[in-house]
């Protein structure tokens, strides 16, 4: 029996860094992030199986299959893959099919969680807060955005990657079935929905400029009529209309045209 082959922390960090830099480097419709996966784990595989060996070739080949996830939260899949390959290289009975099914089974759910937390909640909140600063020409705003995104995502990505390797398949399955993911997603959506409401109120600024000349005097439609019913009626109405159209599975480009048409017609008849 040969000596136990194992990956060091340095190998893992290297793999994480490659993944963070190059995961989408050759993004494509056929296999999505697969080349990125092979790139990220190839140096570690070479250490486990030896470069140019049959095992190495097989391993590379099986990771060239379709793979697509959110790269930070989904980073644990790469960590886990390395743990499984390490066990396999040490002669444990691990079926290559099993490695593939672990990857394909986790990539969807983790992408869903990752996208909700990052693109769905974190970034709109950060942007919502700093765009006001930025619109006044404050150059600290873009720097602040980079810092927020950087700190959170590198932290999350590194944590997830290492968790995947050290926790292994059992660890990750435990997190998923333990309801932690669901709890986090639920909280993120509560925060996301509330903040989106605030964002709609502050960034959808459409208002009526119409003034009716009545015998009793001028009537400003926005301030005397709409505001007295509900402030922000027009922005809220337009945003909810858009949500409704999206729920009807209408094409985004069609909705865009509808919104543009509303703007043009409204302006031409003098309503906006």
């Amino acid at each position, binding site marked *: 029996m040969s000596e136990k082959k194992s990956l060091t922390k340095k190998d893992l960090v290297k793999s994480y860094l490659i993944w963070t830099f190059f995961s989408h480097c050759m993004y494509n419709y056929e296999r999505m992030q697969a080349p990125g996966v092979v790139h990220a784990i190839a140096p570690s595989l070479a250490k486990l199986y030896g470069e140019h060996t049959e095992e190495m*070739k097989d391993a590379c080949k099986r990771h060239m299959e379709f793979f697509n996830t959110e790269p930070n939260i989904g980073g644990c899949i790469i960590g886990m893959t390395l743990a499984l390959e390490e066990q396999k290289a040490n002669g444990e009975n691990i079926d290559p099919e099993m490695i593939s099914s672990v990857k394909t089974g986790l990539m969807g759910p983790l992408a869903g969680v990752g996208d909700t937390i990052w693109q769905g909640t974190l970034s709109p909140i950060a942007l919502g807060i700093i765009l006001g600063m930025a619109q006044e020409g404050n150059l600290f705003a873009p720097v602040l955005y980079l810092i927020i995104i950087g700190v959170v995502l590198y932290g999350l990505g590194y944590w997830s990657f290492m968790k995947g390797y050290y926790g292994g398949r059992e660890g990750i399955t435990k997190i998923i079935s333990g309801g932690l993911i669901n709890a986090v997603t639920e909280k993120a959506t509560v925060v996301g929905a509330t903040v989106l409401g605030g964002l709609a109120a502050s960034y959808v600024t459409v208002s009526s400029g119409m003034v009716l000349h009545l015998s009793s005097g001028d009537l400003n439609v926005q301030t005397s009529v709409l505001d007295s019913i509900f402030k922000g009626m027009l922005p809220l109405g337009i945003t909810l209309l858009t949500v409704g159209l999206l729920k009807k599975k209408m094409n985004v480009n069609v909705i865009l045209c509808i919104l543009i048409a509303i703007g043009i017609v409204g302006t031409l008849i003098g309503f906006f």
Partner: protein
Amino acid sequence: MHISILQAILIGLVYYLGANGTPWFTVNLGWAFRRPLLQGVAVGIILGDPVKGCIVGAAINATYLAQITAGGAQTMDEGLAGCVGTALAIISGTSAQVAVSLAVPISLLGNLVWMIYMTGDIAIVHAMDKVVNTGDVKKIVLWNIIPSQIFKMILYVTPVAIAVFSGADVITGMLDSLKGTPVIDCLTTIGTILPALGIAMNFKAILSNTGNRAYLYFLLGFVLYTYMNLPLLVIGLLAVIMAFLQKSEAIAE
């Protein structure tokens, strides 16, 4: 304002560096750099007016405030909108609101670039399959990076450089001739409506997670801003508190 060929190419590079799939700033900061705010600042620096770049970029960014690109599907190319929109606004000296309306059709054209890229890479993947079968680490690394990045750089830099170099005069002339017509008013109004689209798209993604309860939170956030004028940071904080209070309720049950 006149723009040199070098500036046009640099602006093309700004778009390339923020594109999905460029490795140089890592997937995280590359993604952040794709926000029109960041694109606007970078373009502003190249054209010598970072503050205006920041203002215009922020205005364009409001439309794409809550953009989600999941599963490699891109609905609108906000990087292109931010980059070209800001460049045209600075060169032609137009307002941020008008730049917003100019930027939207540009972002739709960006989808074409994206599709060419995602399809073109398939050919490289097939070539890489052979490389992978040799099990050679160095070759794998090179094949993952070099061919697709060369392809991408040409694909992303060329149209942007040409558009900002030759398009600026066209846009300036067009805007001048439109002065006094309702077109500018229409463009300005559209700019106040379009942020609704990005917000609605993001909200719809949330709806599929939590169901219709999300409407209540949305309304709450809306009212907190319109009637109480709370800053967004405070609204976010209140939302976090609510989210945690809700959990303790669930445990009590």
